[in-house]
């Protein structure tokens, strides 16, 4: 049984880490970009960003003033048990979000869409989002917080099989062009592409592709992995860099996730996880051990399963 107090205290630590510490995989990606960048203005921007991450860690202050919209992904091993059940867990995550908003401090970004009511704590109707996943084995619980920023860089379109790969490329480029100008997407970014699913799941897949996979990871389908490489290069060949200035670094990495869709369609979404690619992860074990990491490791083979039943022994033998 995992104590609820441990869930809340771990969640508060995660809120703090996500807001302040840039994940190492993104940092490595950006350092590499800074070395290759030859646009004078975009070079200056990347150097300033690298200094900014240092300043955030030194001062323990949020790396960006727009601290995004905090949200939670919770993954449970099949045997995990939480003290007080899932209602208690949701209350703990909401409380941690509110406490950290005042504590770090974070910007109280969450308002009612019509009345603009702001509780000054990032909590409200449907906020923070809490989404769940499960894994076949284990008594642990993974808490993942993502503080995705930005109102730009995300788009959806219903494509069709006849649009093909060239249609996918075009919509990808359209999204980068539209939101890359003036740097509205706060690039260079981790671009996530969702292909398939129904409309809402298509958005979810793309968002998770950008936020729940690390720089350098590749889809387990080798042909999709090739597309990821190709799309990264394509995005970086536009000639646009940070802030929309002339440059060669727009895409730190491109992650693609797919889901089965309606036979007549090929829905597609594009998401940009920005220069403040904020995510933090902790695994809480049944014995109370807490392990922190920055890789959500969300897309396991169980999450990408295609079969009716999950038979791990047979899968392993293949």
């Amino acid at each position, binding site marked *: 049984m995992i104590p609820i107090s441990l869930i809340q205290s771990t969640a508060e630590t995660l809120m703090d880490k996500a807001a302040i510490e840039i994940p190492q995989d993104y940092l490595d990606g950006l350092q590499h970009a800074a070395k290759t960048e030859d646009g*004078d*203005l975009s070079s*200056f*921007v990347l150097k*300033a*960003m690298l*200094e*900014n*991450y240092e*300043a*955030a860690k030194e*001062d323990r*202050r*949020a*790396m*960006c*003033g*727009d*601290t995004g919209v905090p949200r939670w992904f919770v993954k449970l091993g099949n045997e995990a048990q939480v003290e007080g059940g899932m209602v208690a867990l949701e209350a703990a995550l909401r409380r941690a979000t509110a406490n950290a908003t*005042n504590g*770090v401090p*974070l*910007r*109280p970004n969450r*308002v009612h869409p019509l009345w*603009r009511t*702001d509780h*000054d704590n990032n909590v409200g109707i449907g906020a923070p989002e809490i989404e769940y996943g499960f894994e076949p084995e284990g008594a642990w619980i993974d808490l993942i917080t993502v503080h995705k920023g930005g*109102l*730009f860089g995300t788009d959806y379109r*219903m494509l*069709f099989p*006849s*649009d093909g790969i*060239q*249609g996918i*490329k*075009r*919509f990808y*480029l359209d999204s980068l*062009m*539209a*939101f890359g*100008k*003036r*740097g*509205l997407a*706060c690039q260079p970014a981790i671009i996530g592409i969702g292909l398939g699913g129904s409309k809402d799941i298509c958005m979810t897949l793309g968002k998770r592709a950008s936020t729940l996979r690390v720089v350098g990871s590749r889809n387990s389908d080798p042909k999709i992995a090739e597309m990821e490489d190709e799309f990264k290069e*394509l995005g970086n*060949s*536009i*000639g*646009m860099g*940070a*802030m*929309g*200035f*002339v440059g060669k670094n727009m895409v730190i990495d491109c992650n693609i996730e797919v889901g089965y869709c309606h036979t007549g369609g090929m829905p597609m979404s594009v998401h940009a996880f*920005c*220069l403040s690619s904020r995510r933090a992860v902790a695994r809480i074990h049944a014995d109370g051990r807490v392990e922190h990491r920055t890789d959500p490791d969300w897309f396991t083979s169980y999450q990408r399963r295609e079969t009716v039943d999950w038979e791990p022994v047979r899968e392993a033998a293949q």
Partner: protein
Amino acid sequence: MRIREIRLSTTPTDEAIAELRLGDIVYLDGLMYTAREGVYMRALEDKANIPMELPSQSAANFHCSPAARINPDGSFDMGAVTATASFRFAKWLPEWMAKTGAKLIVGKGGMTSKDYKEYFVPNGAVYLSTVGYGTGALLGRGVEKVEAVHWNEELGLAQAMWVIKCNKMGPFIVASDMQGNCLFERENAKIAENVARVYEGTKPAVLKRYGESDDRTDEVI
């Protein structure tokens, strides 16, 4: 190109503004206030009295909501500060400038050269863009202190009017000049030369959308 670095007062002289060139890096000293849609609507549409002497106290309007809190004892803690996209505020800016004498509009992404020519240049104002846009921690270091926060009860912390004392706060990039030129449009034009090549082989979507432009050198703002 060598990048010039300049320190500028938040109540700058006309001469100091005239010397700025597109792409210069600026660090600010003096008082700066945040004002975005909440403040604009309250001051311009609801005609509430602006709780500062403008522009004598500050001629610098920051499109920003800080990551900050008001402590129980009334003191302030400001962590990171970064800007929000400015193009959305074009509706209010001409009247705001006329009313407050703002000379420095500080934000994200700049405005169009049309905005600059129509009301920035006649008001002797320029646009400074934040860098990145995520240099929130660096900008936070440039906040010497929070002087005051106004209208937080009416507008919430994010939309409130924060008055901050800047000490070499930056970096910011000069994104417009006294001729009404726009740094971002200059960069767009250079990138546009390559667009046709990047799109080569791709094809328009089978299902069209209303109002779709097929000119990728256009902007969507």
